[in-house]
């Protein structure tokens, strides 16, 4: 199984690993590992020779080469958002490359089942007309956010170029949409979340899925993963387990999948909480505008005044072009902030973003050094409260290192992390 997306591939792979293990599969996986060619090669070399399922999270730019050298049975494609333009280039180019991958896979003697997000217009256009597609989506319109976010990308029809009509916007450009000009329309999901109840601690959802003979059936899943972006991850993982069971005729009881998902905690930096004396730190990985917009919404769901730390680095793994911070809708935080601390190599770029966003700069402290920024942020955080720490990948490693040195958390690569 291959899982790719701009956002959510690590968490979805983690959920799928739990689900397939519960179904009795013996896995080789790169869950929480490197998702480029070398990471997958390493996982295969290190993996148990007796494994009967490979489950790999795949970097979106590496999908073509990894698909070419494997024989996937299930391919899960979740979303494409603008992300690290200096590394991935334009979104449109990536969509074109994915189309070639799907064409190649479909032409094989044993084509895979595609598990695709009906709510992403680009992914829907890629899957249109293909056999062996399981569509997933979110059918709870009460979670709509109003207008498309500033960072929304798929605003035009891929087939005819007309502006898409988004009836419901859920995450970035994900939602319920139609082309008013041609017949490209949101596919009806086979597996969908029909009712979602979000809380700061996670969520509950009602999932609808097909049964072999009769009408679709429903079940309720709870998950400690916060935010609507994680609803998509849960639905995607469930749809992929369903597709695998359907394809291999190795049935898996849906409630068993639900039970393991309920126990699957956030992956590294995806909302995990670390206790620091009488306070808590919630680590939220900041990768791209759509992901950070989701993190901001998650933070806003907490009651009361907020303590926030943002760390921005511009190293290779973070993306060297920091202009993306201007596409994030940070503004809703302003009125809720008790303290805001900015750090990382490009802390002053963040300060400019907030200054020109009209934030009250009296509440803002800046220190590029991550350890000092952490000290300032923790000192400002009231006892019993949570410090929400949003940071880019290498800055997250820096932050974890400081917390590990101080004995608050094991090193992230250790097995019990």
């Amino acid at each position, binding site marked *: 199984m291959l899982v790719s997306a701009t956002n959510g591939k690590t968490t979805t792979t983690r959920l799928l690993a739990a689900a397939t293990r519960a179904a009795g599969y013996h896995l080789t996986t790169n869950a929480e590992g490197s998702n480029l060619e070398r990471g997958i090669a390493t996982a295969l070399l290190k993996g148990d020779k007796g494994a009967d399922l490979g489950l790999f999270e795949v970097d979106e730019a590496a999908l073509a080469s990894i698909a070419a050298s494997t024989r996937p049975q299930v391919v899960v494609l979740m979303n494409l958002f*603008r992300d690290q*333009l*200096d590394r991935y*280039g*334009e*979104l*449109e*180019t990536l969509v074109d490359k994915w189309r070639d991958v799907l064409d190649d896979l479909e032409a094989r003697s044993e084509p895979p089942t595609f598990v695709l997000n009906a709510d992403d217009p680009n992914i829907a256009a890629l899957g249109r007309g293909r056999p062996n597609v399981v569509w997933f989506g979110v059918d709870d319109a009460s979670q709509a956010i109003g207008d498309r976010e*500033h960072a929304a990308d798929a*605003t*035009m029809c891929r087939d005819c*170029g007309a502006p898409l009509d988004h009836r419901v916007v859920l995450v970035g450009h994900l939602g319920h949409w139609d082309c008013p000009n041609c017949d490209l329309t949101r596919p009806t999901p086979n597996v969908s979340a029909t009712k979602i109840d979000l809380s700061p601690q996670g969520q509950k959802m009602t999932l609808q899925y097909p049964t072999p003979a009769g009408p679709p059936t429903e079940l309720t899943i709870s998950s400690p993963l916060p935010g609507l972006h994680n609803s998509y991850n849960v639905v995607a993982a469930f749809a992929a387990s369903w597709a695998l069971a359907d394809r291999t005729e190795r049935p898996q009881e849906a409630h068993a999948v639900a039970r393991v998902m309920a126990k699957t905690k956030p992956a590294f930096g995806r909302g995990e909480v670390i206790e620091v004396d009488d306070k808590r730190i919630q680590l939220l990985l900041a990768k791209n505008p759509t992901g950070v917009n989701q993190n901001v919404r998650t933070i806003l769901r907490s009651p009361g005044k907020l303590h926030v730390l943002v760390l921005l680095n*511009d*190293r*290779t793994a973070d993306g*060297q*072009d*920091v*202009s*993306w*911070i*201007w*596409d994030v809708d940070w503004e809703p935080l302003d009125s809720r902030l008790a303290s805001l601390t900015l750090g990382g*190599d*490009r*802390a*002053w*770029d963040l*300060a*400019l*973003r907030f*200054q*020109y*966003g*009209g934030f009250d700069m009296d509440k803002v402290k*800046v220190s*590029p050094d991550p350890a000092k920024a952490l000290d300032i942020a923790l000192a400002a955080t009231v006892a019993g409260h949570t410090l929400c720490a949003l940071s880019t990948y290498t800055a997250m490693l820096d932050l974890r290192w400081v917390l590990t040195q101080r004995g608050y958390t094991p090193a992230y690569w250790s097995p019990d992390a």
Partner: protein
Amino acid sequence: MSAIHTVRLCHMYPQLMNIYADRGNIAVFRQRLAWRDMDLEITEIGLGEVIDPGQHDLYYLGGGQDRDQNLVAKDLVANSATLQAAANVGAAQLYVCGGIQLAGHSYVTADGTELAGLGILDLTTEAGQNRLVGDLIIDATVEGTTQRVVGYENHIGRTRLGPSCVPLGKVVSGYGNDGGGRYEGAIFNHVIGTYLHGPLLPKNPWLADLLLGWALEHRYGQDVVLRPLEDTVEARAHDAAIARAGVKR
């Protein structure tokens, strides 16, 4: 009470040409005027819409993905006479990334298609083999003043200037217009084209005030003076970008 002085901005195709955080440039225009008790009035122009001639003091066009840029190129030519006339009477215009390509005479895409541009800047652009990506630092010279301007570039186009416009500046670090690492951007009258994003204006307040000064002059003549601002945070971010360009990790 509304402000006495208002700059009228025409923001061209904000829905399509916004890929390199162009909205940051607009936020800088708005905020730097607000700090001086002045207003920014924004008119957004989308596909199929016509710009009202003579009604704007400042024009902005940002960068887009190839597909969106092609849509805009076809649409924009309908407004070329209006924009040309505005340039001739000294209205300020800023064209960033894809914008500089569309402000020139023509842009030849990777598949050989030639798109007609506005022809306001005497330059032509052709897609190269590879994208030019990285930190870009230039020494820009405008109206006799030279200032270091910092940002990031990410473009496949190679831009060559004709005789009636001059480069915005000399490249200190980075690729610049044609990948040769010599010159960057173009300037003619009060029209500036550049590949610098990051976005451009937050870390280069001098350039922001230069454009705002031209826009105010277009509307009110020479009487309105922009009070200097402290720009402490701007200077720190500017320095961080220079340090970043000099240090290869």
